[in-house]
């Protein structure tokens, strides 16, 4: 039944991502869900390791929801070919910023959840 939890979480995650892009715009919406999703996956993995979250819960929240809410492909395509009026070059600063922010959020959520749940 793991596949069903992954599918439900994936559907929810894609809907959240699309909603964020329509609410905040394609760039800010993608960055928002990528940041939130990094935190959600960090918390889910820490909860799984601590025995607080069962495997079906991780399949739903971690693999499905957080995995599908966040997107690598959209980020790199938008970095190479920034959306919006006018043609300009790749948005390197966004890539660096989002990589640093994503790593910090993932580390902080893993570390803080592991301490809280220990």
């Amino acid at each position, binding site marked *: 039944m*793991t*596949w069903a939890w*992954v*599918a*439900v*979480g*994936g*559907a*929810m*995650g*894609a*809907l959240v*991502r*699309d909603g964020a*892009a*329509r609410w905040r*715009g*394609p760039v800010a*919406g*993608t960055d928002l869900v*990528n940041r939130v*999703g*990094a935190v*959600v*996956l*960090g918390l889910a*993995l820490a909860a799984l390791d601590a025995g607080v979250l069962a495997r079906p819960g991780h*399949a739903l929240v971690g*693999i*499905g929801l*957080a*995995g*599908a*809410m*966040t*997107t*690598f*492909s*959209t*980020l*790199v*395509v*938008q*970095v*190479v*070919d920034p*959306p*919006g*009026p006018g043609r300009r070059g*790749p948005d390197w600063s966004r*890539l660096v910023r989002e*990589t640093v922010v*994503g*790593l910090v*959020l*993932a*580390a902080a959520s*893993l570390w803080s959840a592991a301490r809280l749940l220990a």
Partner: protein
Amino acid sequence: METAAGTGRGTSAGAWSRPAAVALGGALGALARWGLDVAMAIEGWPAATLVANLSGAFVLGLVSRRLGDSLPAVGLRVGLLGAFTTWSSLVVQVVDLGERPVVAIGYLLVSLGGGLALAALGLRLGAPRPGDGPAGAGPVR
């Protein structure tokens, strides 16, 4: 910039058609990513995420200027490809590999460098040519 076609307004699609296409694509994309993870389980090296992210970046680049805002296109671009690739797994895996910093940095650099190169290649190969007709895709998301 959001277009009328991009919002689904002014099209024959019902109010629930776009969310249904996104949800279906998202479910399939997440299942494909999970299936790849099960099939490519390599201890200590997140090969499945790397393969999913690199291949998804190439395909999204390839189709992003080609496909319009039809429901199948939205389901593929926003739903399936968006959910098949994952940013959260990448950053969490890099943090998880922190005890092996060379591997962690190598994984991050190969993911980002490879993803950017393949997205650029896909965009180049998928760019509409004269006579192809309107490529109605909105902003990539």
